[in-house]
């Protein structure tokens, strides 16, 4: 018999910890190699994690709902010698996401590197979806995905170490008003040491009244969150439960979204422009080509046309495909379009990489593949990273239009309103005017006025509108 440690994998370079959301196996269960044994949820993605080896699940060290640093041993599998596992190799790295073995390559990256990574791409504002059929039950029930610690005695000594800080660290934390849980730890089992907390404070972390934000995304806060955190501590506005209320802790994804949205509002100078777009031409193209696309395994949606129009016009308007770094503007070389996807348990923004290099067919195929895998928790970490522009689609729920919040560190986000027939004044061929029903939608674009002026935004937006209203049939 050999004992193989099962560890919390590193799901991408900037990820320091993961939440064990669900055990798919019980202690005593036989597991096959690569059989999914638990589910995790990290800053970026949710994923199922396969067994590193065949054997019996001998010990569960991390209970459901617990967040632990990457590389933490979460379980032990006992193998039979005949399986061929060497007893001298106790620590086997689990392949990363079930779908994403490519993430393994980066799993050895140093924690220091992780600490320097930028804020994670979370999600834009409204509950939106890339697909009209997206489930929209964004109720608090989503929190049940992250069950509360069961207190069933599965907490290990290492867990306790991570959770419990030493007296000195607590004292320093109190003096500087910092949240210990939000500091990456380098000590045993990821414990926050004196060095860690002093380094954190020195790095200019939010020192003034620390907002009672989640332990989520600690690294990003230290690296990218500026000083002057919002004062969420005004007791006059603080909510407290009344009799009959139900209180549930936010899920990790909820906390991240909350933090990200407030951060974005505080960071960018949000301005929103609205354009009404006549997409009757697209409607015709769509009707005409729907079958053809279906035969090729793709669903031709209105959103596909919009993504394509945005991707094709961003190259001409690089300021809209940019990011702000201090007093510099980063003009992105790639056009990577994030699409907000509403999930039962929150929002995620998978990214269509190099969208301008894809045909319309390529765009819709990629988009729907990403959306499907987002719902199945099969996204790879790099598939939610490096977006340069985001599109969100609240219209599927009937919204006329909304003003989305920018997905940091990008500078613009496009919102799509409901698509429906509306009366419109049209000049007829004989020069007379008439009110006719047309397939219409509203588009909104929120941009960061720090770097994008109204003229820049509207020039880009105008080009997108023009392309949508006279979409080249040859491109379909």
């Amino acid at each position: 018999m050999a004992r193989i440690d099962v560890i919390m994998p590193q799901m991408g370079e900037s990820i320091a910890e993961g939440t064990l959301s669900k055990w798919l196996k019980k202690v005593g269960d036989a597991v096959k190699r690569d059989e999914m044994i638990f589910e995790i949820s990290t800053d970026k993605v949710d994923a199922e994690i396969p067994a590193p080896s065949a054997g019996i699940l001998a010990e569960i060290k991390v209970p459901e709902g617990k967040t632990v640093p990457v590389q933490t041993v979460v379980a032990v599998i006992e193998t039979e010698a005949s399986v061929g596992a060497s007893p001298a190799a106790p620590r086997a790295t689990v392949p990363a996401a079930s779908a994403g073995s490519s993430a393994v390559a980066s799993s050895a990256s140093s924690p220091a590197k992780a600490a320097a990574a930028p804020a994670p791409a979370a999600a834009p504002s409204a509950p939106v979806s890339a697909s009209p059929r997206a489930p929209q039950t964004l109720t608090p029930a989503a929190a049940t995905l992250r069950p509360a610690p069961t207190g069933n005695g599965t907490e290990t000594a290492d867990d306790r170490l991570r959770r419990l800080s030493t007296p000195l660290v607590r004292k320093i934390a109190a003096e500087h008003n910092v949240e210990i849980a939000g500091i990456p730890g380098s000590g045993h089992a990821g414990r926050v040491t004196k060095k860690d907390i002093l380094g954190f404070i020195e790095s200019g972390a939010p020192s003034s009244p620390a907002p009672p934000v989640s332990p989520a995304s600690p690294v990003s806060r230290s690296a990218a969150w500026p000083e002057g955190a919002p004062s969420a501590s005004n007791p006059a506005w603080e909510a407290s439960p009344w009799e009959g209320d139900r209180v549930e802790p936010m899920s990790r994804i909820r906390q991240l979204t909350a933090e990200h949205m407030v951060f974005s509002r505080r960071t960018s100078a949000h301005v929103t422009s609205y354009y009404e777009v006549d997409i009757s031409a697209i409607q015709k193209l769509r009707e005409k080509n729907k079958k053809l696309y279906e035969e090729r395994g793709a669903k031709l949606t209105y959103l596909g046309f919009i993504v394509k129009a945005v991707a094709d016009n961003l190259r001409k308007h690089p300021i809209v495909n940019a990011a702000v770094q201090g007093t510099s503007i980063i003009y992105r070389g790639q056009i990577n379009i994030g699409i907000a996807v509403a999930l039962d348990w929150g929002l995620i923004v998978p990214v269509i990489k190099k969208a301008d290099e894809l045909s319309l067919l390529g765009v819709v195929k990629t988009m729907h593949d990403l959306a499907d895998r987002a719902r199945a928790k099969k996204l790879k970490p790099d598939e939610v990273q490096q977006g340069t522009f985001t599109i969100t689609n609240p219209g599927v729920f009937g919204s006329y239009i909304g003003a989305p919040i920018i997905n940091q560190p990008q500078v613009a986000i496009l919102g799509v309103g409901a698509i429906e027939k509306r009366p419109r004044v049209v000049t007829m061929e004989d020069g007379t005017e008439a009110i006719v029903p047309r397939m219409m939608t509203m588009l909104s674009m929120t941009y960061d006025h720090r770097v994008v002026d109204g003229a820049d935004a509207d020039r880009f937006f105008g080009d997108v509108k023009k392309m949508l209203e006279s979409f080249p049939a040859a491109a379909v």
Partner: protein
Amino acid sequence: MPEVTYLEALRQGLQEEMRRDERVFILGEDVGTYGGAFKVTEGFVEEFGAGRIIDTPIAEAAIVGAAAGAAHMGLRPVAEMQFIDFISCAYDMLTNYVATARYRAGLPTPMVVRGPCGGYVRGGPFHSQNPEAAFLHTPGLKIVCPATARDAKGLIKAAIRDDDPVLYFEHKYLYRRIKENLPEGEEIVTPIGKARLAREGKDLSIITWSAMVWKALEAAEKMEKEDGVSVEVLDLRTLLPMDDEAILATVKKTNKVMIAHEDTRTGGVAGEITARINESAFEWLDGPIFRVTAADVPLPYAPTLEDYVLPQTDDILKVARKLAAY
């Protein structure tokens, strides 16, 4: 500056005090003509005469009792235990009588009980003990444990000059292994109750005394070289009264503390130090207080077993690394 051993330094201290103050005298088994089992008092009987270097029967309770009486009468006796292990024979005299005399009768008892302690010399269970913990619990006594030649000299002189009973535990492993340059003619008196910073460091502290000081220093060197961890070593020198100030200073400085002592673990002095830190500097700790001690067994004769039971440099190193990584 002549190089002197730990033993020679102790000898000089005794000699200087006997020359300085004729009330000082030595009594013990074979201290006279034979010059002591380890030759600490070799030649003393020739210089000071049999009246001040007194050979006694093998009766530790009698030696301590006689010394106590002489001290009450105004003399300053230095009683030698041939091996400190046998101080247990005088336990009753020391704890019931000597330690309480000032409280009971207002009688100062300026006496020293000294003797070779410690292992690493294949001495077995009767000739290797470290009895400090047995007396730490007795108010009224003072306990000193020199680690260096300078302190061997300085502490015996301070002990002799002290108006209270002082137990002076000299480590026999250090007798001839430690050599230092001590300036001739310099009056070396080490204040009782003051610890010595044997090595400055910033990442973690080892609190220790006696022969373990040297092992701690060795481990500290290794840590610095191999791990880049800066280790502070605090040589307590006096166990009773304990230098709380120095202990707290090092705790507040490095925030990670371990205690190394040669005595067995359970009920050892490390426990007392741990408790003091816990009470006075809890908020300064960035890790648990670890102990490195002998195992809880009588010391075996067999060399391999003695090496196993007694704390070695590698044991300190192992625990120090664990603490540094904590």
